[in-house]
């Protein structure tokens, strides 16, 4: 029986959690669980995992758009039914993984994927660029300072050769967050694009005392820039000290009557040098190297050019296995700006509370032109 609005509690099921993962494992995964011995990347986007049992599991990784219709999902299913015994997997970076146990189906699958225009690009493995993790952007979020899907499409079109190749010094992880809330691991990416606001919130006097808990909005400000005021008519409102605002948007999260979005004020900052893996060096945060680029929909050309320039400099200069941030630290950030042809801007010098250790406390610097 379907849902009956007249009896909402009838046959209600709650608190059952996700569908159990084991039912989705291909037979070869069930059989070789915990027995995988080693893997090889046969060509960009195509992996084989060898088991102690002698079994081999092939994976074809293709890029996916995070926003995806049921039409596209059904097409993925059609492919998986034909070549993968009805099994499919998604990665944490929105890639699609076609799992092939029968080697004779591998080449036909690859040919089929390649025949479908730009829908299923194969790649995203090894020392290249894999899919960009991103947030919702203008397509579905109220705090977004930039779109996300369109930014990702623009960057991936430009850097596409690196998706299907493994010629970089190490893998480069790119992420896009459409505001400082960063609903993705943007803060620890090789290259991160973050939507930022540059105008303080407006106070909507008509609604603010009706829709907001004013003390929560005041408390939400990390710099104490918001204070409560009593107006002549006795009603209460908020006042912003614009000089103290760092445009984090936390007040707007607490109070809908303090909108920040603005066509001229909003844009992106570019951060680089973050990583998550513990390989060779510790995890690192990404650092702001370009404080602002205006929004240029639909293809954000200035931003895309800047990213390309950073990536090209890294590709030409870094050592094998060296992540972008490790390269920048080895050559020194002053040299990094020079090599990437990024104009140094005083806005990238930290001036928030914990800034001091980020300034140079030594005479160990290099000369630049």
């Amino acid at each position, binding site marked *: 029986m*379907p849902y009956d*609005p007249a009896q909402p509690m009838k046959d*209600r099921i709650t*608190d*059952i*959690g996700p*569908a*159990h*993962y084991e039912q989705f494992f*291909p037979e070869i995964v069930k059989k070789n669980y*915990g027995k*995988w011995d*080693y893997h090889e990347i046969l060509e960009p986007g195509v992996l084989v995992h060898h088991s102690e049992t002698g079994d081999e599991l092939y994976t074809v990784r293709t890029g996916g*758009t*995070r*926003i*995806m*219709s*049921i*039409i596209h999902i059904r097409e*993925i*299913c059609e492919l998986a039914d034909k070549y993968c015994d*009805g*099994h499919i997997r*998604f990665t*944490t970076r929105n890639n699609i993984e076609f*799992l092939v146990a029968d080697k004779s189906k591998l080449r036909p699958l690859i040919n089929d994927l390649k025949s479908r225009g*730009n829908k299923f690009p194969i790649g995203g493995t090894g*020392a290249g660029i894999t899919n960009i993790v991103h*947030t919702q952007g*203008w*397509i*579905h979020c*109220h705090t977004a300072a930039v779109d996300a899907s*369109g930014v990702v*499409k623009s960057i*991936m079109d430009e850097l*596409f050769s690196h998706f299907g190749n*493994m*010629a970089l010094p190490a*893998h480069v992880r790119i992420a896009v967050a459409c505001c400082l809330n960063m609903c993705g691991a*943007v803060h*620890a990416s090789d290259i991160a694009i973050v939507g930022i606001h540059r105008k303080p919130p407006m106070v909507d006097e008509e609604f603010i005392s009706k829709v907001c808990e004013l003390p929560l909005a005041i408390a*939400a400000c990390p710099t104490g820039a918001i204070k409560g005021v009593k107006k002549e008519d006795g009603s209460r409102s908020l006042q912003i000290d614009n000089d103290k605002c760092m445009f*984090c948007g*936390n007040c707007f999260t607490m109070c*809908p009557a303090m909108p920040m*979005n*603005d066509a001229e004020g*909003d844009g992106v900052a570019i951060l680089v040098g973050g990583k*998550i*893996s513990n*390989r060779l*060096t510790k*995890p690192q945060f990404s650092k702001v190297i370009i404080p602002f680029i205006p929004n240029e929909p*639909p293809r954000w050309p200035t931003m895309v050019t800047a990213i390309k320039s950073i990536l090209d400099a890294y590709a030409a200069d870094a050592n*094998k296995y060296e992540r972008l941030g490790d390269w920048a630290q080895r050559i020194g950030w002053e040299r990094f700006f020079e090599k990437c042809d990024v104009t140094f801007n005083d806005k990238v010098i930290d001036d*928030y*509370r*914990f800034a001091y250790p980020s300034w140079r406390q030594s005479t160990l610097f290099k000369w630049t032109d």
Partner: protein
Amino acid sequence: MPKHDTPLLDELESGPWPSFVTDMKLMAEKNEMVADLLGLLELSYKDKVGHWKHGGIVGVFGYGGGVIGRYADRPDQFPAAAAFHTLRVNQPSSKFYTTEYLKNLCNIWEKHGSGLTNMHGSTGDIILLGAKTEELEPTFFDLTHELDTDLGGSGSNLRSPSCCVGKARCEFSCLDTQAICNDLTNEYQDELHRPAFPYKFKFKISGCPNDCVASIARSDCAIIGTWKDNIRIDQEAVKAYVAGEFPVNGGAFSGRDWGPFDIEKEVIDLCPTHCMSWNGSTLKINNRECNRCMHCISVMPKALRVGKEQGASLLLGAKAPILEGAQFATLVIPFMKMQAPFVEFKEFIDKLWDWWMEEGRNRERLGELMQRKGLQELIEVTGIKAVPQMIEYPRENPYIFWKEDEVEGGFTRDIHKFRKEHSM
């Protein structure tokens, strides 16, 4: 004929990367909500600002999370996208699917919503994007009845735990990541659906220190696989790598000619603890000095394997910058065996959550509480042992908060007695 002209979005249909615009246009032919969403998005591309209202309180009965309310601010122009709520649907651990499951999911979503999804959202859930308010309960009903699948977390709840591919298809994994992820998700269903925390809480489980789910950067509690014994070495395979018989790093660098593999330069010298040596025929690892960074294993996966005595390192307190800056997770327990039903782990989490729920301020993440109250207090309330592995370096200031019972004779002293010996 499309309902709205979208000249700016149309420019995102060309190029080699898949186009979300092309996909949405196909969906728009079947569903007017998507047609109006495209119109709304085109308006944003023209205006350079978003057109969504702030939040909106909607949900399914009895849950305080799993649904995000979303209303367009131009319902006059785009009525079919006026209410466009999100359902977070708890993904199966590691995101393996059968096509049967996905097709059923598509059928449910075709019936009740816009037909747009995210596969997947940042936290890991399947995101169903675009439900009208009256369709929320029927969608939830069908998900639970037909797919045996529940909603995920949102708001000040436990968020849907997520994990890497683990032992299902990775030789590096030291953990049964799916088993841990699935068990914790089911154990804490109440915390996931009903907000009782100061703020969000995330568990993420990675099978090894390569951390493919970014747990160290993104989760309040990161469970990262590791091992205590020795890296397993196949000396013949090492020789084969040196002889150039196998591609290094599983072929991850094969797109460029980096020259022949040089084990001294690429492994021995790069080892961060310099605990390896190579004499031309034998690779030696001083495992006691190894910090398990995974580089040598990643470079020569056919020759080197993680150890057999496997468990997890637990790290706490990661978060994105809002509010006082980003934090990575801090190591608090270097090694814990992770075997079902994970009793030791859950006892630790109970104590941790008691502390956070007692002391945490509104919207204070665990990592911010740790920053405010100190690692010592966390050590004390959870009863874990202070060990040097927890710190990067010892404190550089001598401002130690001695407690009265730690100081001989206590804190109470007699000023009159003191003055008899020391005039003012």
